[in-house]
């Protein structure tokens, strides 16, 4: 084999990112488009390897190729290609560069054979993806981006801490199955959990994705959480806690999604719901369940990408994203409408669309393992998905009340990217064995058995009927301009409010204390600033005499310490 093909998969993207930064726009676009194609080809020829690399006494394994990482590798190359194609009309060098860096880091992360390399790409992903949010260049997006990065960085630090402790204890950095028994493994588990949007940690996702650029959301929805899913599958497959965490993840976002007005935020919630299915599968740990989880991750990237792109196209053309401001767009954007419906059908798991063939595997595995209640929860969640993602998204954006917007189809490159995703959705839905052949365990599974297809169709029909009835009876939550309160409320409102509230409680409602506490808060910040601020005690230029005083103090102190 040519040595050329032994290049680490992520390198192509990094080189491309540098070229895009330096080259003129046209050439840069060409490079952006070529990188995923070339990278995918090279990956195809890359043999299963685990190259080792010694730094000091540490053995690193920067590139490990096996079935699991290869599948995610292909997926990310496809996602990167679709994303680049979707955004190729932009003349924004910042986004073009960082999206390639982001894709490359995600690919680097799934091929990382040791925890340290994983950490490295983990943080690079966080850093590069932040720019896709900042690139919206609004104050709101800036703040959301900073919050996003902060949480991602915390995840990285936890991962690093866990890694270092594991290394100190075992002397090995290898990233393989981790038993959830020690403090170190818990740290890593939480680090993965944050990126995977576990309940209570999920908030960065629904907070930041809707604030990103129309094209950035397509990249964001493809990589970060799926890398976390991969990391869980690699490290914590068969951990029972994941089954229940996953079940909660599938159910709770439904309620938020139904009342949410910002359609991209609806998609963000439905993303957590879909990841829930994957997490359940990983938690079960059987061959069928893992296969199902991974297949679902694959499909989710494609159909969620398709939905994000259709919403991105709407945002790009109309500048609006709230369900209450949109409607009736099918007249001016018929192609986008039909592509969006294909995505909606896939995410709702209509038979012959991609979501069906993978979700079915997870559901079967849940029943095989005897988790009836979890199965019921997933069933409820499936109905909910159809409700908020399958019907709500296309209905409010393209049908519903006519908001009187007359616009046109998005640029050709956007349409093309959506068409590719739609073709993949249908292709995998009709002929799932294409995907099954790539899965890490050999598959002997037929999604199209009669009971299964019938059950799913019943579920969908009743769900649709319910939506229709609720709509006609006017019980369905109207499209309101409202703010949903989620966990972010904890740190954006609750914590700042807590201190004054506690003050109020403690002093049986005396206003004085609460004010005092608030003042105390301010005073603490003031003290910090007074000492560390640009003209603070510790930062200012001291008179020479005081400096000398310090010398005397230190000398006296050390003499005392030595003598006694």
């Amino acid at each position: 084999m040519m040595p050329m093909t032994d290049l680490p998969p992520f390198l192509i993207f990094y080189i491309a990112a540098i070229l895009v930064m330096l080259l003129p726009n046209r050439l840069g676009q060409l490079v952006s488009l070529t990188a995923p194609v070339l990278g995918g080809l090279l990956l195809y020829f890359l043999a299963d390897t685990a190259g080792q690399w010694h730094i000091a006494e540490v053995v690193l394994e920067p590139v490990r190729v096996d079935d699991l990482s290869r599948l995610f590798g292909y997926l990310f190359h496809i996602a990167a290609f679709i994303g680049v194609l979707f955004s190729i009309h932009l003349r924004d060098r910042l986004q073009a560069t960082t999206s390639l860096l982001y894709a490359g880091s995600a690919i680097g992360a799934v091929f990382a054979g040791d925890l340290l390399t994983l950490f490295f790409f983990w943080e690079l992903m966080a850093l590069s993806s932040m720019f896709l949010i900042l690139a919206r260049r609004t104050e709101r997006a800036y703040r959301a981006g900073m919050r996003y990065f902060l949480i991602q960085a915390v995840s990285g630090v936890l991962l690093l801490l866990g890694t270092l402790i594991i290394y100190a204890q075992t002397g090995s950095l290898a990233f393989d199955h981790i038993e959830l028994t020690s403090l170190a493994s818990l740290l890593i588990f939480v680090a993965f959990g944050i990126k995977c949007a576990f309940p209570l940690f999920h908030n960065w996702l629904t907070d930041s994705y809707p604030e990103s650029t129309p094209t950035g959301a397509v990249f964001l929805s493809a990589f970060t959480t799926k890398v976390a899913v991969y990391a869980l599958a690699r490290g914590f497959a068969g951990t029972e806690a994941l089954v229940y965490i996953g079940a909660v993840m599938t159910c709770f976002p439904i309620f938020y999604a139904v009342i949410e007005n910002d359609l991209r935020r609806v998609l963000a919630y439905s993303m957590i719901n879909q990841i829930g299915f994957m997490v359940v599968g990983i938690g079960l740990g059987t061959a069928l369940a893992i296969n199902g989880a991974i297949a679902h991750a694959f499909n989710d990237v494609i159909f969620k990408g398709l939905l994000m792109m259709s919403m991105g196209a709407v945002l790009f053309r109309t500048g609006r994203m709230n369900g209450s401001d949109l409607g009736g767009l099918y007249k001016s954007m018929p192609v986008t409408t039909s592509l969006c419906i294909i995505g909606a059908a896939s995410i709702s798991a209509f038979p012959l669309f991609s979501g069906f063939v993978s979700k079915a595997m997870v559901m079967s595995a849940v029943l095989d393992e005897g988790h009836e209640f979890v199965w019921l929860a997933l069933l409820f969640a499936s109905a909910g998905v159809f409700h908020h993602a399958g019907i709500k998204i296309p209905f409010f954006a393209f049908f519903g009340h006519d908001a009187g917007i007359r616009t046109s189809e998005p640029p050709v490159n956007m349409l093309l990217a959506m068409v590719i995703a739609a073709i993949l959705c249908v292709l995998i839905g009709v002929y799932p064995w294409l995907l099954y052949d790539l899965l890490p365990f050999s598959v002997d599974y037929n999604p199209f058995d009669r009971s299964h297809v019938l059950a799913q169709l019943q579920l969908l029909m009743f769900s649709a009927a319910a939506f229709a009835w609720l709509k006609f009876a006017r019980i369905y939550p109207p499209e309101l301009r409202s703010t949903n309160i989620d966990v972010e409320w904890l740190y954006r409102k609750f914590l700042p409010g807590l201190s004054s509230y506690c003050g109020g409680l403690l002093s049986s409602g005396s206003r004085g204390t609460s004010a005092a506490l608030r003042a105390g808060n301010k005073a603490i910040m003031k003290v910090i600033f007074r000492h560390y601020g640009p003209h603070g005690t510790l930062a200012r230029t001291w008179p020479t005499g005081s400096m000398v005083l310090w010398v005397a103090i230190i000398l006296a102190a050390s003499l005392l310490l030595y003598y006694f």
Partner: protein
Amino acid sequence: MIDSQLLLLQVTLPLIAAPICLLIKSGRACWAIAFIVTISSFSLAAIVFSYVLTYGVLEYNFGGWVAPWGISYRVDIVNGLIALLVSAITTIVLVFARTSVSNEIKNKNQSIFYTAWLLCLAGLLGITVTGDAFNLFVFLEISSLASYVLIAFGQDRRALTASYQYLVMGTIGATFILIGVGLLYAMTGTLNMVDIAARLPQGVTNRTAQTALAFLVVGVGLKLALFPLHLWLPNAYTFAPSAVGAFLAATATKVAIYVLLRFLFTVFGFNFSFEEMPLDLIFVTLGIVAVISASAVAIFQDNVKRMFAYSSVAQIGYMIIGLGLSSKAGLTASILHLFNHAWIKGGIFLALGCVAYKLGSVRLGALAGAGYRMPWTMAAFLLAGLSLIGVPLTAGFISKWYLFEAAIEKDWWLMLIVIVMGSLLSLIYVWRVIEMAYLRRPDHEEEKSEAPLSLLLPTWVLVFASFYFGLDTRLSVGVAHKAAETLIGYSP
């Protein structure tokens, strides 16, 4: 076998070249002389280093007087490494100085500048190679006096007060060192460091030895900017000419740390310093306070040079913590961080020098949009910043990693939190600059104005080194290991 006179040459070359520079008057010519001298000092240091790497120790006796009677230069792997580091970085920074200095200093003063530069280098190398305690003091004074002059060359008028304060503090430090050496001499009747170690009376209650140690640690602590004796440092680095800031940040404090190591391990011995005396406690406490407090101060700074001057204080904190761990692993981590930090901080200060050269200011506000106006400079800054934070694959990561391991070996879990917190704080202040440079637009659009190649090249060499030593650690880690072994091996 090589001639041990090479040791002598290393120091005397810059010492002789310095007055020649003073006579010449032409800035260009002085630079050329200084460059030739530094690069030959560097080559000599490299030869000596490769010699001690295989044979252990190289000694040169002045006038043929054997060690306890005459002055001798004595190089083992520890000071071999430091001499190599100092001369290498001086060479690189001197390349930078040519353009930068001719921009900042009037032509007629340049010959004085290079004279002082060479004297400072001679002093630093002299401190490093000498085996004689009093000789060390003399070289310390030479380098200090020269560095006061260098700092006073700064364009800002505050450079004069900064230099004056440094002069007062530095003189106190030197006096303390002299007192310490004097006490040792009174006790042992010798000035040769190895000889002092052999004759030093053992025992806890030796008050003279204790007092000598106290004076030496505080004196050297002043020179190396040990918290809270660092107060002279921020202004000195901030207001000095760009090249001088980088030069001193990367070499002077490092040499001072070497002096501390030499006294603690070679002269007093590991047992006396760390087991009989509570130095480990003092160092760890001061180190932790330095890391957290100086980093926190750095976050709020508006002047970026000053920000990284405080960051230097914090980084010295790491080295002192490693020392305070009082184990071989801790000592290795200290030496390693000393080595790596020299490249990193040198790179950062040179990048800031490029900014000062083109934008005329290093205030945070002036850097708005600098990422677009000076892409290569800011890219260098970003990379060196990553290394400072300690991102994997960088030199900064390697030394923090070893510090981490040394702390775990002692089961000091609190230390892990301090190290991680220090890294996070450094992330914040590096980020402040990056955000300003890449995410803020300047008030009025300005032309792209990249620094000239003569400034960029040395900057990138240092940045490259701060990554190279993160990937290929054979030199740095291997030598740090050996150096730690050598130092601990001196103890009886």
